[in-house]
C-alpha cells in the first residue's frame, strides 16, 4: 500500500505529508501533522466538530480525503489567533461562556468565522441556520449565538 505525497498549505504554511488513499483530511491533520485542534465527533459529516476551510469553503474535514487537499489552502482552528491575539470570535466565546466541555468549540469557531466573512451583519436566525451543521450537546447553543452576534458587532465597529 504505497502512500501519496501531498503538498498543500495549512494556515498559510507550506506543508507536505504522506497519506494513504483512504485517509481523510481529518486523519491527516490529526495523525500525520499533529494538529489535533480539529476534532472528530462522528466521522460522517453530521456533527461539524472537524470544520475547516479549504480555499475559503467551509467543509467537514472527515468528508474530504487527504489527497484532495493537494494544492489547496487549508485553514484550521490552529490558525485562527494571530500570535498572542485571539480572534474576536475566540475572545467572545470566552467572555460569553459559549463553551462548556469545549470539544465542539473549534468547529463552531471555524464555521462562525466563515459566516462572518460572508455576512458581517447576520440576524440571530441567520446565525442559528448557518451553525445548524455544528452540534453542541452542552450549551443549548444560546451563548454560542450570543457570542457570534457580539463578535459580529465588534468586527463591524458597531
Amino acid at each position, binding site marked *: *500500500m504505497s502512500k501519496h505525497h501531498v503538498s498543500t498549505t495549512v494556515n498559510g504554511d507550506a506543508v507536505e505529508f504522506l497519506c*494513504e488513499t*483512504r485517509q481523510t483530511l481529518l486523519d491527516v491533520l*490529526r*495523525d500525520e501533522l499533529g*494538529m*489535533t*485542534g*480539529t*476534532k*472528530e*465527533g*462522528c*466521522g*460522517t459529516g*453530521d*456533527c461539524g*466538530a472537524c470544520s475547516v476551510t479549504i480555499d475559503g469553503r467551509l467543509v467537514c474535514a472527515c468528508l474530504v480525503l487527504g489527497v484532495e487537499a493537494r494544492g489547496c489552502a487549508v485553514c*484550521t*482552528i*490552529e490558525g*485562527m*489567533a494571530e500570535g498572542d491575539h*485571539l480572534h474576536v470570535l*475566540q475572545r467572545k*466565546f*470566552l*467572555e*460569553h*461562556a459559549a*463553551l*462548556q*466541555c*469545549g*470539544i*465542539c*468549540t*473549534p468547529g463552531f*469557531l471555524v464555521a462562525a468565522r466563515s459566516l462572518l466573512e460572508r455576512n458581517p451583519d447576520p440576524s440571530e*436566525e441567520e*446565525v*442559528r*441556520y448557518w*451553525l*445548524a*451543521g*455544528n*452540534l*453542541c*450537546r*452542552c*450549551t*443549548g*447553543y*444560546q*451563548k*454560542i*449565538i450570543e457570542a457570534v452576534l457580539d463578535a459580529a458587532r465588534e468586527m463591524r465597529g458597531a
Partner: protein
Amino acid sequence: MLTRTNNADKELKVVGTRPVRPDGEAKVTGQARYGADYSAPGMLWAKILRSPHAHARIRAIDASAALALPGVKAVLTGADFKEQPFEYVGPERVAVNYWHMTRNVMAREKVLYEGHAVAAVAAISPATAEAALQLIKVDYEVLPHVIDVDAAMRPDAPLLFDDMITRGIEPAPAKPSNISKRVEFRLGDVEAGFAAADAVVEMSFKTAPVHQGYIEPHSCLARIGADGQGELWSASQGHFVVRAYTAKLLGMEIGDLLVHPAEIGGGFGGKTVVYVEPVAAALSKKTGHPVKIMMSREDVFKATGPTSGASMTVKIGVTRDGKIVAGQGLFKFQAGAFPGSPVMNACMCAFAPYDIANVNTIGYDVVSNRPKSAAYRAPGSPISAFAVESVLDILATRIGMDPLQLRLKNAARAGTPTAYGPRHAHDGYAETIQALQLHPAYKAPLGKNQGRGVASGFWFNGGGESAANVHVNEDGGVVIATGSMDIGGSRASMAMMAAETLGVPYDKVRSIVADTGSVGYNHVTGGSRVTFATGMAVVDACNKVIDDLRGRAALIWDVDVAGVVWEDGHAQPASAAVGDFKPLSLAAIAAKRGVTGGPIVAEAAVNAGGMAPGFATQFCDVEVDPETGAVKILRFVAAQDVGRAIHPSYVEGQIQGGVVQGIGWALNEEYIYNQAGRLSNAGFLDYRIPVASDLPNIDVVMVEVPNPNHPFGVKGAGEVNIVPVMAAIANAIQQATGRRLTELPMSPPKVLAAIDAGA
C-alpha cells in the same frame, strides 16, 4: 479537622462574577488535549470487533488469521480478563457488579446486544487493525432476542441470564426471569388516599432510550510497562473511578496505575463507566507498547450507555380544592443487557417534589438485548417526572386550577416527609414556582395551534468524596489542584471560591485538575456534586492555608497567633493592642517562607454531606403544525433553585443545556431497532439531537435559596433542569391540540396520529 466559614451573608467580591475560565484559551485555540489527542512513541492502534447479533452464544473465536496479518501485534478476547466474583458492591442505588462489568467490556459466554465487544486487535496502524478484525472468525449460535421492556418481562421471554432470580421479592421467585430487581417505596395508605380524592387520574406512559450524545467519542491511550506500572490518558467524568475499574478488571494494584485526566468532550453521566480503558490497558500489557483506542460514533451509539426506556403507569388523586391526597406509580425500566437501570431513582424522585401523605412506588429493573444503560443527567427522575407531571396537568384541568397553583399548593418544603425515608431538609421548590407566577410571559396570549405547558422536577444532588490541594507559590500566587474533571467550567468555580476565601484576585489563582497520583481521591464529576463537594474541599484547604499564614505572620511579628487575623488577602493585627504592624500580603509571607517553615501548602478532603436537592419549574409555549405534526418550541422559561451561583454564566449554561437535551428527548431522540434487534439509527444523521435552528432562546430564571451547609450556599445545578422538560412539552402540546401524548418521543408521526385519531 474541617474549618467551616459560612460566607453566605458576607459581601462577596469574586463569587457571583463572570470571569473567563482558566482553561478557556486552550479550548478556543485547539490546544486543549482531549481523550483522542494523546499519542506516544511506538504507539499501536486498537480496534474492537463487535457483535452483529442481538443475542447469541459464542461457540468459538478463531483469531489465527488475524494474528498472521503483518503488523498485528495482539488479539484480545474475554478469556484474557480474569473472572470476577458475582456480587453487588456499594450502595444499592449505584451498586456495581464486576462480573457484569467485565462481560460488558468484553463478552464471554454470550453476546447480549448488537455492538457488544467480542475481541480487540492491536496493530501498527488503524487500517491494519481494521483489516485484522475482518479476519477474526466468531462462531455464533444465534438466540432469540427481546428488545421491549414489557416483552422482556413476559414469562415466555428469551432469557439473557439463565440464573437471574429477581432480587427484592420475598420469598424469592423459583424461576429465573429478565427482571433483575424489584424496589418499592411506601408512605401512608394510598387506598385510603384515593378514597378521599375528588378526582383520580390513572394513565400509562412509555419513554424511549436516549443517548447522552456527548460529541467526543470514548477514547484513551494506555501504557502498561513490563514492571506492571501503568499510565492511562482517558477522557472520563472521573479518572479515579477509571483507575479503580481498570485496575480491578486487570487484576492490578490501584497504585500501579496512574490516570491522567484528558479534557473531556461531554459526558452527562455516560463517561462514569469504562469501555475502552481496560481493553487498551490489557493490550498494552500484552504487547509492551502504548495502545490507543478511539470509538467511532457508531460504536458509541451501539455499545455505550443510553439511558433507559421505560413503561410506566401513574395514578394520582386530588381533592376539589387541589390537595394531592395519593400518588402511585409502577415503573418498568430497561436496564439494557446488564442490570442497573436508574429505576430506583425514578421511584424515589417521582413524587418527591410534593407533600403527599400517601405514596406508593414500585419499580422493576429489567434486562433486554440492548446496550447496558448508563447514567444520564438526573438518571431516572426525568422519566418518572414525565408521567407524574403529565397526570398532574390533567388533574389541574379537571379541577379548574392553574397548574402552577396546583404545584405551589402541594410543594414540598423543609420538613416534608418523602416516600423513601428522610424528610426534606431544604426549601427552594416553592420559590421556583413563585418565580414563574411573576414571569410576564406566563400570562402572554397564545395564538392558533399554540399551547403552554408547565412541569416541575426534583433531583437529589450529590455530595461525597473530594480532595483538593492548595499551594502558595514563591511569588504569592496560588495553585489549587482538585481531582474533579472539569466538564463545564469547574476550574473557574474552584478558582473563584479559593480567591474569595483567600481574599486575593481571581487571576492570582491557577486552578488545575491533577492526575490520580497528585491529589487525593475524587469521586466522579456527576450528581451535580463538584461545585458543592469539591468546592468544600477547596475552601477547607484554603482555610488551612490561612491558618498557616496567620501562624507565619505571628512568627514574623513575634506575637501570639490569636492576635493575627486574615482579612482582604493580608495578615493583619487583630487589634491595636497586638502591635502596629503593616499588613502582610501572601507575597510578603511567601517571601519569608524559608524562615517560617518552608513551602506553604495545605490539603483537605471531605466526604461531603449536607447537599441540598435541586428543584426546577418550567413552562414552555409550543406551536403544533396540524398538517405535519411537527412541534416548534416558541418559548422556554426555566426556573431553578441553584442555592448560589458561583459563576452565573456557567450555571445558566447548565440550565440551557439541560433544557435543550430535554427538548431532544421530548421531540426527536430514540433508539430504533429492526426485527433482528439491530439498531437502525446509530449516527447523528438519523439520531437527531437538537441543532441551533430548532430552538428559541432558553429564558433562565435562577432562584437563589442558599444552602446553609456550603460555605457559599451552593446547591448542585447541573441536572434537575432536564427533569421537567418532556412533561412541560407534552402538556403544551395537549393545550395546543387537545391531544394527550403519552409516548416519547413526540415526533411528528405520533403527534399527527394523535391529531388524526381525534379528528
